[in-house]
């Protein structure tokens, strides 16, 4: 499963996404729609750290890196390369 798919799975469970999986597209705005809140961000970060073996720095906790599934996948990919 691709990185984006694993992130999508996590968000579907974490935010109790109640629409179909297809609607949660790579560019769906996660913050504006409240899918990630102040508690959710820390769950997501610990998921990324344990699942992909990366370490997310404080200064990387910005909307540009967490606004969409594509942003998150890109952040992880850039940290792994």
């Amino acid at each position, binding site marked *: 499963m691709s990185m984006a798919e694993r992130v999508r799975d996590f968000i579907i469970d974490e935010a*109790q996404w*109640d629409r179909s999986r297809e609607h949660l597209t790579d560019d769906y705005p996660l913050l504006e729609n*409240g899918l990630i*809140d*102040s508690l959710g961000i820390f769950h997501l970060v610990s998921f990324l750290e344990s699942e992909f073996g990366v370490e997310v720095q404080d*200064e990387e906790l910005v*909307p540009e890196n967490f606004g969409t599934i594509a942003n998150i996948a890109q952040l992880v990919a850039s940290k792994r390369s």
Partner: protein
Amino acid sequence: MGYLLHHLLSSAAATSPERPAVVDGDRTVTYADLEVRSNQLAQLLIELGVGRGDRVGIYLDKSFESVLAIYGILKCGAAYVPLDPQAPGARLAYMARDCGLRILVTGHAKRGAWGQIAAGGSLRHIIVLDVTGDGGNELTENVGIPILTASALDGRPVSAPSVESIDQDLAYILYTSGSTGEPKGVMLSHRNALTFVAWAVGRFGVDPQDRLSSHAPLHFDLSVFDLFGAAASHAVVVLVPATVSVFPIQVARFIDDHAITIWYSVPSILSMLTERANLGTGDLPSLRTILFAGEVFPTKYLRRLMHLLPHVRFFNLYGPTETNVCTHYEVAPIPEEQTETVPIGRAIDNVEVFAVTDEGRIASPSETGELYVRGGTVMRGYWGDRERTDSRLVTSPLGAQAEDDVYMTGDLVREDEDGNYRLLGRRDSQIKSRGYRIELGEIETALYSHPAVLECAVTAVPDDLFTNRIKAHVVTRDPVSEAQLARFCAERIPRYMVPEFFELRDSLPKTSTGKVDKVALAREVQMRGARS
């Protein structure tokens, strides 16, 4: 100061018309504009039949429009009912039905739940404040009641309607978690809010140069200080977008960019600011005061934040929604070795607090008792629930000198040598998580409504950053996944109440009387961690 909340606005508009009242993103609205626009909304509401004592819902993400809605509703003599913009439709529908909302003031982004809210039957109109023209008409048929837009305000009289109200009239209803499984509406009057606002403005020396943050959502009573404290002082309130508080560094940047002088929020946001915002000593130079309330501030983070921001004064404000803020404590320097949490302090002006022992005596200092509150900030009662009101608002045990009703908080406290009260715990199963007040019984009720659930118990797992995290222990008759249970809950209760952890088990431990043994469950969680 006036004796009604909207007098604060009118007086600011009369003496400081061109001063900014609200900053919402790129928009800045002056006191004069807010006054005129809210007068027009009040005139419209009156034309639509809203009158003194009616309830009008606000279902909007926090914005200039929601501030406008608050004042418009108050000015026609009605009470505003701020609905949690993130709550599931079923819960919104319950609240609308419970307090008989006549009108819903809302935003276009919220249209998905209008139908469900309107189905309760009490709603007569929907006003969409962030849409102009007749943009509402196309949606009317789906909802079944007339929908108006902001254009309906244009051309209405710009003067304030004349409505005869007194300060004992209802100003707003805040819904909080209820132990029986349904949220309960706490009724607060103009006097209740103004007693607190008048004290706060004086205590914190708020002046027209101040820039207040508005972080808490409107259905949270912290917003009362942000909005009305600013208006009382002719200062500006800067709305913090919900997306900003997700990222600690953004919170710091927001405080800097907007030159915030007074910040007020729950401690968990401040703990994250301390831990993950890369703050250096002396950063955030504009800040002069930080107020926190809603839950206990973990001492280690509070101490660290005070070291990082030596130019800031810190105040702990305490009070359940039913009493607004009733005590306060200015945090003194915290010694390195201290782990004990800071006190909740002493009563604010025009409020009296005391502790009552299990035997019903007034506790002497150093004795543990339940905190009782008497005075101007104490609520009028729970909406439509005389029985519950009578169980919490009781005749004062102080005797003949004070026979008015007092509020039993359910919080156990002790007064220390300095005359400050310290919070020791709860009498019941109410918990706090990220400042939200949660009745564990309400979560259990939601779980029990699942057809496969045979037995369940919900426990709180203490956590440094979030005070508590929630775990459900569930016995089912048919196989159900944790994700299915979580989703089922999310359709019934707000997300902050949905358990983070589910444990599916064959049985629950029982006490000798056959009740679920929550102490044993809590011990298990403590020993094995929340996740197992």
